[in-house]
């Protein structure tokens, strides 16, 4: 099976593909980290890697279709080697993506790009008055553990000479001083509930400057790149399995199966409807990637991998007979 996987891998990674992938990696690095051109953003680099992975899955679909046209699927059926062949195809595709991720990590490790001081990223947060001295803050997506609310309070209507007060939520209290921003660290429960209610003593008459309320999220350090790339691989694990399932079990054209699998996995980010596990955070990338990086719940990840495993299981079955 390993020999077969190696053969498919060689077919996947032909010279033109290898050359294009290498050039793409260098270009991605330049566009993301160049002192004069780039945004100096790890998220931008990750986004170019995600695009390359998607292109490699399309290549995988194309190669599968070539193998069908060459008659290998019929050979598998006659020799009863469908299970081994499907597994070999899956391993070849996964190793291809793994190799690209390793190269991306090596590139960053060797050249060590300079990224500006790691300031946290700020995002507007929706707030509304809960009462005269209470405010509700809510957000509609998963945010990383350790995120903070960054709040500015107006003391101008407070009793004379009052410059300190207390903000509270459930059992937690925090002092707030006039002229200082309050950083309220959100608990795991707040993050899961996607909302929090903060209160101040009614007699202090504080008001929140709502247009200045922000969520403060730490940007992942460049040393977390390996972990972020591993998460991408976990995401594409099921994408490869979907492609293989479409091709082997549903007998769809290889390229169509690849496009279909990328379309299906895109639906993980569908707002308001939970058709698939909430694993969009696994491919956190782009210029706002810190907001979704490391936010995937373990149960969602496990379900995602189990779906992938089940799809591979189906793919290893012999295809249904074709009616003539």
């Amino acid at each position: 099976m390993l020999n077969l996987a190696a053969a498919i891998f060689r077919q996947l990674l032909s010279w033109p593909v290898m050359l294009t992938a290498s050039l793409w990696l260098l270009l991605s690095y330049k566009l993301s980290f160049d002192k004069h051109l780039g945004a100096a953003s790890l998220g931008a680099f990750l986004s170019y890697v995600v695009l390359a992975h998607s292109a490699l899955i399309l290549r995988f679909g194309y190669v599968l279709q070539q193998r069908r046209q060459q008659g290998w699927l019929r050979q598998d059926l006659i020799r009863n080697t469908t299970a081994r062949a499907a597994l070999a195809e899956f391993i070849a595709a996964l190793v291809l993506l793994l190799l690209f991720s390793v190269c991306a990590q090596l590139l960053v490790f060797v050249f060590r790009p300079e990224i500006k001081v790691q300031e946290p990223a700020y995002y507007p947060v929706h707030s509304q008055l809960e009462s005269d001295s209470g405010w509700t803050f809510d957000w509609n997506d998963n945010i990383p553990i350790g995120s903070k609310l960054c709040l500015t309070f107006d003391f101008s209507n407070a009793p004379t000479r009052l410059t300190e007060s207390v903000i509270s939520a459930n059992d937690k209290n925090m002092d707030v001083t006039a002229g200082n921003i309050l950083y309220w660290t959100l608990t795991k429960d707040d993050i899961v509930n996607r909302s929090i209610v903060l209160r101040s003593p009614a007699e202090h008459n504080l008001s929140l400057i709502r247009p200045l309320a922000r969520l403060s999220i730490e940007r992942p350090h460049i040393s977390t790149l390996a972990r972020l790339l591993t998460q991408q691989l976990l995401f594409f694990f099921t994408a490869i399995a979907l492609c293989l399932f479409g091709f082997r079990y549903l007998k769809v054209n290889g390229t169509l199966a690849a496009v279909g699998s990328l379309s299906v996995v895109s639906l993980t980010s569908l707002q308001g409807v939970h058709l698939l596990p909430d694993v969009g955070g696994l491919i956190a990338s782009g210029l706002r990637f810190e907001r979704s990086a490391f936010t995937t719940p373990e149960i969602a990840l496990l379900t995602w991998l189990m779906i992938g495993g089940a799809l591979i299981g189906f793919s290893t079955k012999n295809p249904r007979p074709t009616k003539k």
Partner: protein
Amino acid sequence: MERLPSIVVAAIICFSVASVSSGSARLVGQGAIDSFRCFNLYLDYNRAHIEEDFVLMNRVALQIEELSGNSDALEFSAYAAGYSTSADSHRRTDLDALHWAQAGADWLNSTVAQRDKPWSGIQLAAYIYAERIVEHTGSMLDREKMLNSFEAWLASGGGPDAVSSLTADSYRSWLTTAPAERDNYIINVMSRKDTPE
């Protein structure tokens, strides 16, 4: 029946494309497209800056803000239009300088709630009102906006990137000032502070 799976897959692709176009889902790899678009927008922004096309600068800055969440370009476009090039040294006519100062202040005021780091922008808006608008128009409404902006900036202690105990102290002193004297106190503090850069 033989083609049914292909039809189903095609339908799923169509549904995904529709979801992506309606903005309710994001295509895998869309981050790369956005990053590259942003890279190109920065080139356009720099070109507009060189040509002093402030309207284009602001329009491009809004797109950059939408794609990347970074509002530095937006604030700089307001600074360039409303503050730096409205100075006397730029030899603009008074009317022209006032027009661009008001435009810069409006750009800042209308985006306070959406900018990622609004703190330096509200300070800038206060100074645009103080030095480029109120001096010429004497409008009470503009004066009110100036005072409110600067008060909010003092209340934030200068913002996370420019935390200053002096700013926080000024705010606490302002709180202890009699309500009738508070406006003058702010104007005094503004005249003592460094102008925005």
